[in-house]
C-alpha cells in the first residue's frame, strides 16, 4: 500500500466524484412509486471526507448503492449523474461498472458479520479482489493480504488468513472488510454506517483507523452515518439529508457551531451528552420520516419542525447555496445557537 502523504485537497479542486441531481425511484407494483432519493447533488474532492447524515429512511444508503451500481436490477429507476474521474458511473454498462467496483471505488458496509461470506476463509476474501483487478494469482496475493490485515491492525495476520469470519471478533471483522476495500488502493471509499453494529469502544478504534488510512493513502471517502459523533471526528464536509433531499451543507466546524436547518439542530439535540445536567431530558425530533414525502408542494420536514411557518406547508423550499455550503429552509434557526 502506498504510504505517500497527500495533503487534504484544496477546497475548490476538481471533484473526484460529482453527483448531480441523483434521483432513485422505487416502483412498487400497484402502488405509487416511492422516491427514495430526490435530486441529491454533492462533490467529493480527492482526499476529502464527505459525510451524508440523516436518520433511517432519509435515502443516504440508497444514494451510495446507486453510485456503486448495487441497487437491484429491477424495480427501480436511477436518474441524474455521478461523474467519477470524468466518467458518468450511472451510464456505464454492468461489466464496465464491475471493473470499477473494488478497484477505483470500494465500499464497506454496516454489519461486518453478515457482510462476510461465512464459508470462505478471510484470506481468500481479501485476495479475490486483488485476483480480480490486479491479475494476481492467489499465491501472489496471499502475502499482500497478510500485509493488508496487518495494516488495518489485525494481530497475527498470517494466521488470520486461514480463519473464517465467525472466528473473528466484531471489530476484527470490520477491519478485515476495510482491508478488502483497500486492497486495490481505491481512490474513493464509501463507508455505509461502518461502526453502527460495533461496541462503542470498537467504534472509536475503527473510526481512528479509517481516519488514519484516509490521510495515509489519500483516499477520498464518503461517510454515511446517522451519528453526528462520527461526522465530528471524521468529515471535512457534511451533507444533511432529509426525505431524499439535502437540506443543509457545510464544513464540519460551521455546521456544528452554527447549524441553520431546524433538522440539523434537532439531530444535534438528540445526542445524549455526558455533561448535560442530571435529569435533563433529551430532546428528540418528534415523529418519524413519513413514507411518501410531500416535497412537491411543501417542506417534507414541516410536520416535525418547531420553526414551521405557513409557507412551509404550501411551497417547496429551494436550495440556497452551492456545492460547498447551502441550506434548504424558509425559516432557518438564528445564526447563534
Amino acid at each position, binding site marked *: 500500500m502506498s504510504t505517500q502523504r497527500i495533503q487534504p485537497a484544496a477546497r475548490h479542486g476538481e471533484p473526484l466524484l460529482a453527483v448531480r441531481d441523483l434521483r432513485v425511484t422505487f416502483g412498487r407494483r400497484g402502488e405509487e412509486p416511492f422516491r427514495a432519493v430526490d435530486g441529491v447533488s454533492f462533490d467529493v474532492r480527492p482526499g476529502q471526507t464527505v459525510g451524508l447524515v440523516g436518520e433511517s429512511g432519509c435515502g443516504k444508503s440508497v444514494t451510495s448503492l446507486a453510485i456503486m451500481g*448495487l441497487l437491484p436490477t429491477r424495480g427501480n429507476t436511477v436518474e441524474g449523474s455521478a461523474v467519477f474521474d470524468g466518467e458518468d458511473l450511472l451510464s456505464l454498462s454492468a461489466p464496465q461498472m464491475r471493473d470499477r*467496483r473494488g478497484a477505483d471505488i470500494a465500499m464497506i458496509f454496516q454489519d461486518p458479520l453478515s*457482510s462476510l*461470506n*461465512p464459508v470462505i476463509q478471510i484470506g481468500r476474501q481479501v485476495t479475490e479482489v486483488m485476483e480480480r483487478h490486479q491479475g494476481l494469482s492467489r499465491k501472489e496475493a496471499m502475502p499482500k493480504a497478510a500485509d493488508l490485515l496487518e495494516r488495518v491492525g489485525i494481530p497475527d495476520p498470517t494466521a488470520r488468513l486461514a480463519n473464517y469470519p465467525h472466528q473473528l471478533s466484531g471489530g476484527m471483522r470490520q477491519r478485515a*472488510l476495510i482491508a478488502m476495500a483497500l486492497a486495490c488502493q481505491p481512490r474513493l471509499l464509501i463507508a455505509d454506517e461502518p461502526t453502527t453494529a460495533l461496541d462503542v469502544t470498537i467504534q472509536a478504534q475503527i473510526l481512528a483507523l479509517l481516519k488514519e488510512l484516509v490521510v495515509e493513502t489519500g483516499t477520498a471517502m464518503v461517510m454515511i452515518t446517522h451519528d453526528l459523533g462520527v461526522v465530528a471526528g471524521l468529515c471535512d464536509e457534511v451533507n444533511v439529508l432529509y426525505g431524499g433531499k439535502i437540506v443543509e451543507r457545510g464544513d464540519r466546524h460551521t455546521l456544528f457551531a452554527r447549524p441553520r436547518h431546524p433538522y440539523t439542530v434537532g439531530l444535534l439535540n438528540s445526542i445524549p451528552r455526558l455533561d448535560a445536567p442530571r435529569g435533563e431530558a433529551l430532546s428528540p425530533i418528534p415523529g418519524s420520516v413519513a413514507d411518501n414525502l410531500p416535497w412537491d408542494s411543501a417542506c417534507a420536514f414541516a410536520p416535525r419542525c418547531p420553526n414551521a411557518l405557513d409557507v412551509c406547508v404550501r411551497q417547496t423550499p429551494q436550495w440556497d447555496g452551492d456545492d460547498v455550503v447551502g441550506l434548504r429552509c424558509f425559516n432557518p434557526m438564528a445564526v447563534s445557537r
Partner: protein
Amino acid sequence: MLRFVVRRLLQMVGVLLVLSLLVFVWLRSLPGGPVSALLGERQTEARREALEQALGLDQPLPVQYVRFMQRALQGDFGVSTQVLPGEDALDIFLSRLPATLELSFFALVIAVALGIPLGYVAARRKGTALDTTTVIFSLVGVAVPVFFTAFLLKYFFAVEWNLLPVSGRQSIGLDATRVTGLFVLDGILTREWDAAWDALKHLVLPSLALATIPFAVVFRITRASVLDVLDEDYVRTAEAKGLTARVIRGRHVLRNAMLPVVTTVGLQVGALLSGAVLTETVFSWRGVGQALAEGFLQKDYPVLQVLIMAAAAIYVLVNLLVDITYALIDPRIRTR
C-alpha cells in the same frame, strides 16, 4: 471430525436396536401371519400348532425377540418363509440390493442434475414465466403419486410409442456378464457396450418415475435457498468488490445455497426407498422394494425384518454422510 463420526455411528447402533424392537412387535401385531399364509385353506388346529412350534412362534414375544436378536447379532436373520422359502433372508436382501442401488442412484442423479440448476435459474429469474412454469411443474411432481407417474410413463413411452422397454432390468436372452450386479456398470466394466446400453434403456423410465418427488423437493429447496442467499449482505459485498458474475455465482451464492440442499438430498434417500417399493412393482424391477412388497403381501417376517432394518441402516448412513459433507462445506459446524 473422527470423534463426530464415531459418535454418530454409535448413535446409529442405538437407533437400529430400538427399530428392531419396533419392527419385531409391529409385524407380529399385524393380522394374519406366516402360519395362516403358509397353510392357506388346509389349516387345522393341529397343523397350525405344529408349524408354530417349528417356526418358534409359540413362544412368548420377548423370548422370540431375544432369540431373534441373538441370531441377528451373528449375522443370521432367519430364513424366508414365503418369498423364497428356505433362502437366507439376508442373502435375499443382498441379491436384491444392486438393482435398487442402481435405480436409486440414477433417480438421484436425475433429481440433482435437474433440480439444482433449474432451482438456481428459477431463483435468478423469480417471477418470470420460466420461474412460474418450473414451480408449477415441481408442485405437480410432488403431488402426483409415484405409482401414477410410473404408470403414465410406462403407458406412453413403452406401450403407446414403444420407445423404451416396458419392464425389467435387461432384455431377456441378452447374454451379459455379471460383475457388481449394477448392470450398466457391469456392461461398462466388461466392455459389453450393448449390455450397458440395454440396461440404461431399461433404467430410463423407472428412474424418471422415482426421481419426480426428489427432483421437485431439490428444485424447491434450491430455489428458496438461492433466493435467501441472493439477499445476503455478503453477496452485496462480493458485488461491491467487482467480482465477475461467475465467481459470485459459484463461490458466494451456490456454495452457501447448497447447505440446505445437501441436507434435503440426504432426506430424499428415504423418499427413494419408499418410492422404490411402488416403482419397482410397476416396472417389475427385481429390487429391494419389490421384495419388500412381496414380503408384506405374504407376511414373510424374516425377509421383512431384514429389509426394513437394512433400509433404516442405509438411511442413517446416508444422513451421516450428509452431515459430514455439511461439515466440509460449512466451517461453522466444524468448530462447534
